[in-house]
């Protein structure tokens, strides 16, 4: 099982291709349109940032990629989100969520589980039986990828909540990548962390970029500039501009993008 998983992520060919295509995505909360017809493409082995002022719909877009909107009773979704050319909105959320992992703003390891069980939580959630060695391999693989292995290998059976904030967030990343997702979504993953820990997480994201597509929501412009291949600027539910980081930060087409980046509003 995990061998297949390892191969899947490591044997991906070098040329990048579109993995996710968002087409005319509209999300309504009680008939208030929070996302107004967004089109975006996310590619393999690239980091895509979504920036924009508070309330512009960044999280809403990200959460719909993980099909979490179905947990919000007043949310309604239109348009399509294609993963490998199949609309995920018509598919079983459980299957899709295993292929598109999510990391949240506040580090949220399961407080009742050990570090190892946290990493394996996805398998437990899906009732996938693993042998002892399989489990150990997955834990080691995911924690190494999340750059946490060295710090926690001696205390895999301790609870994850005893870790520092940054370690907890890396544990959450490990938990998400243990399932071998093709796309990793991160919603302001460093906003609750100190600057040094933030740099650690950014370095980690750059490493994960080698094997998957990454979509990150951030309020930190420097962060977006440091790590992104492409940057999307959203404003009032609309996608204003979506281009390479260079263009967005040095030569944006839209005046609003320019103003936002230079701190005129926000």
């Amino acid at each position, binding site marked *: 099982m995990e061998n297949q998983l390892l191969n899947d992520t490591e044997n991906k060919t070098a040329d990048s291709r579109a993995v996710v295509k968002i087409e005319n995505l509209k999300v309504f909360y009680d008939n208030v349109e929070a996302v107004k017809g967004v089109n975006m493409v996310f590619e393999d082995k690239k980091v895509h940032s979504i920036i924009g002022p508070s*309330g512009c719909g960044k999280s809403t877009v990200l959460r719909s990629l993980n099909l979490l909107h179905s947990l919000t009773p007043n949310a309604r979704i239109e348009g399509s989100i294609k993963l490998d050319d199949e609309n995920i909105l018509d598919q079983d959320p459980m299957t899709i969520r*295993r292929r598109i992992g*999510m990391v949240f703003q506040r580090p949220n390891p399961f*407080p*009742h589980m050990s570090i190892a069980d946290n990493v394996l939580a996805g398998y437990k959630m899906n009732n996938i039986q693993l042998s002892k060695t399989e489990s150990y391999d997955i834990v080691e693989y995911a924690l190494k990828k999340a750059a946490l292995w060295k710090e926690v290998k001696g205390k895999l059976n301790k609870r994850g909540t005893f870790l520092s904030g940054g370690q907890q967030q890396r544990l959450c990343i490990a938990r998400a990548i243990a*399932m071998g997702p093709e796309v990793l979504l991160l919603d302001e993953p460093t906003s609750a962390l100190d600057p040094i820990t933030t740099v650690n997480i950014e370095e980690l994201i750059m490493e994960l970029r080698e094997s998957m597509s990454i979509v990150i929501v951030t309020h930190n412009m420097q962060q977006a500039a440091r790590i992104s291949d492409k940057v999307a600027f959203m404003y009032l539910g609309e996608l204003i501009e979506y281009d390479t980081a260079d263009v967005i930060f040095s030569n944006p087409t839209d005046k609003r993008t320019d103003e936002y980046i230079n701190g005129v509003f926000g």
Partner: protein
Amino acid sequence: MNNYSNKEKVKGGRAKPGFSAQKKEVGNREAYQALDFSADKKNLRKVGNSIFSGAVGFSVLFISVLILLMLFSLFMTSFPAIKASGFSILTGMEWHPESGKFGGWPFIVGTLMTSALALLISLPFSLAISLALGEYYKTGIISTIISSSIQLLAGIPSIIYGTWGLFVIVPIVQKIQMGMADKGIIPFGLSIITASVVLAIMIIPYSASLARDVILQVPQDLKEAGYSLGGTRFAVIRRVILPYSMTGIFAGEVLAFGRALGETMAVAMVVGNLRKVPANIFSPGATIASVIASEYNEASPLHAAALTELGLILFLITIIFSFAGRYIINKRSIK
């Protein structure tokens, strides 16, 4: 959650300049006003604090003394029995007041058996109810209907449960017992299991409402983390919600168990009041509370003292279970 993060960002200084300056002014004025009266307020607060901590200290002391006094007076009242036969009431198998035999073991067994069985029977129901209220229907008409019926259940007098047990549970148990005639069971319908079923229904409100409260408190982001990993709702309940709220659910069970241990009237009406260690759950039996209730009025002084001693034992059992429960809760609680 969204509101919270929005506020934070405004504080972080990315709001429109004009707007934030205005805000600051209001803040200053408030601070100024607070300064004017701060001396008075501080004194008032000090007095308030000391009154409050005094009151808290007093009530803690008062309750502890009250419990000790209760224990003491129970001990004094039961002293004649203790003097006559030591603590053999704890182990004695025979309860025959007419010939001076006061063995309380049958009642201790009866009490623990009915309460434990009641807990076991009520557990699935109270779990289901608490999940329904804490996860599936947090608000709305269904939630209102379920929770008000639960409240109603808690408010029904014991005697009504007893009567209901006699008319509804007893005939059902009788039918089952008839099928067991070859095991020497007489189909009275009054038995340990009858009492346990009635008790189970009586304690559901206690365990369910506590469990509902803790299930409601499971953080939304943990549930979302569960779903984001591909879990079904059932998986999230099983792997996240229930383990997370384990200690709280356990606390509810302890509370319910304590309530079951001491329940008197309803049990006395359906348990059969047989002064023998029950052979199995279909045999009649008696509990400490039921035997005290049914015998105290016509008891000789020594008999009454022995019954009080039984009461003392029940008191101690209740205390032991509540402390053990508290200990486990402290030891196992998350965070």
